[in-house]
């Protein structure tokens, strides 16, 4: 490489740079004015670092010393910082530690206008971020409001549909909560968990289309009557299908599939295993659990351990074994839902 006689010192000055050599603690060339304002002894070519003058640069020099000692390659940059002079004025600086030809050098750069510009950009970006955060908050609140209204509408419609039936309002609410709890345990995304909470209470909606003489018949149903009764699944799906609303589409799948069995022996289509939508497999479990744990006009409540035995016996026959295992893991949560939402006396209205 050819040696040049570049006027390095002038160059540094023009570029608003100061160069400090660690070995003898001195600046190379004259100190620029801004550095003299920050540290008066700089005018004599030396630099003192203490916490009163140049505290941040002094702190960085400590890190730079370790960097030089370790013989690390490349450079260590401080990032921008502001030092305050005796008159209280801020000076934006950035420092870089380097080793060149075995010499430990600290390059101190005055950022000047570049700093002002970067601050202005940062300011704009952050004000935008704050507005964005605020908007997200408003949207989240609105969405929650909407959900609540949708849910209320659904519960009221179902209550109307159930007027003739034996289902209680609390059963409807619990089915939504158990299903959501199980879906959450399975790692479903929050929005889909919300969907199943809204959708699962509609599983028996199709019963509105079942004639009174069958729906309300005391005692056993004949084969033919049973076939009509089983139609509540397809009837419900018919009411709910082809919706643009994801929760209603899910409700259609649940209505259609909540009496399908894992082994294919259920109805109405005899689907098996993964061919049954997961949402319907969830509701299949929690619907039986809840119905058996509570009394109805035509039957007493079973003790929970008997209910659990019943579910276990039907693992991998009626119920998806994986989902049932997760359901059992989450039993404490299911019990809490039952405690918090008991049947209110005879709220069956029928």
């Amino acid at each position, binding site marked *: 490489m050819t040696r040049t006689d570049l006027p390095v010192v002038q160059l540094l000055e023009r570029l608003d740079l100061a160069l400090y050599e660690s070995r003898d603690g001195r600046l190379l060339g004259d100190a620029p004015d801004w550095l003299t304002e920050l540290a008066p002894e700089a005018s004599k070519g030396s630099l003192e670092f203490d916490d009163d003058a140049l505290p*941040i640069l002094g702190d960085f020099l400590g890190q730079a010393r370790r960097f030089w000692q370790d013989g690390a390659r490349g450079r*260590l940059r401080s990032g921008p910082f502001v030092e305050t002079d005796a008159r209280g004025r801020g000076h*934006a600086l950035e420092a870089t530690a380097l080793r060149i030809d075995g010499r430990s050098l600290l390059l101190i750069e005055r950022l000047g206008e570049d*700093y002002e510009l970067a*601050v202005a950009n*940062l*300011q704009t970006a*952050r004000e935008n971020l704050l507005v964005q955060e605020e908007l997200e908050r408003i949207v989240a609140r609105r969405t929650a409001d909407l959900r609540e209204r949708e849910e209320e509408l659904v519960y009221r419609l179902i209550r109307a549909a159930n007027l003739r039936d034996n289902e209680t309002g609390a059963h409807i609410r619990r089915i939504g909560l158990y299903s959501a709890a199980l879906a959450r345990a399975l790692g479903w995304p929050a929005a889909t968990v919300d969907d199943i909470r809204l959708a699962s209470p509609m599983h028996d909606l199709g019963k509105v289309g079942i004639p009174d003489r069958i729906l309300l018949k005391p005692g056993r149903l004949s084969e033919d009557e049973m076939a009509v009764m089983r139609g509540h699944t397809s009837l419900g799906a018919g009411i709910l299908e082809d919706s643009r609303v994801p929760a209603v589409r899910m409700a259609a799948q649940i209505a259609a599939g909540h009496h399908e069995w894992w082994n294919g022996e259920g109805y109405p289509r005899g689907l098996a295993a993964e061919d049954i939508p997961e949402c319907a497999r969830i509701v299949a479990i929690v619907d039986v659990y809840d119905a058996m744990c509570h009394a109805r006009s035509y039957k007493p409540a079973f003790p929970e351990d008997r209910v659990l035995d019943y579910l276990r016996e039907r693992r991998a026959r009626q119920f998806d074994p994986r989902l049932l295992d997760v359901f059992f893991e989450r039993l404490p949560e299911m019990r809490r839902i039952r405690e918090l939402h008991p049947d209110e006396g005879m709220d069956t209205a029928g």
Partner: protein
Amino acid sequence: MIRTKVCMLGSFAVGKTSLVRRFVHSLFGDRYLSTLGARVDKKSLVIDGTKIDLMLWDLAGKDDYQSVRPTHLRGASGCLLVMDSTREHSVDVALELHQLMLDTIDQVSFVVAINKCDLVDEWRLSDRQLEQLRALGGPIFRTSALTGDEVENAFAALARQILASKPPGEDGDPS
């Protein structure tokens, strides 16, 4: 006398600069002027007869695009972990920065400041978030840089912790 480096850590616009300004200069300004890089202010306290000089490093807040530079954090003996009681997200950021602090500094004291507590009607932090903050194990202060509420107490608690964790004679020259 003990002289020690303390860092203001938190998301952007949570009030780090305002807390330092309130504590050091007893001033408050409405306008948001975001900090770029680092700036240091000094304040002396006397804790149980020991004078301690706090070098308060006001750092740029973390946002989606940039985090806190470890170079600025190194060598600190304490941090004030600041969040904004009106912005849920600022707690999540504070929790991340708490981790960064532990990863960067070996032995460090910290105090949690839930700031802007004068804005009572705009409180947005959930119980779960408060639980997460409690789990960090540091003292928690509900501060307001606007009214000055709990600001002195938060810094004094941090100074007290730093003194308690330092064996005498270490760091800073004994006077």
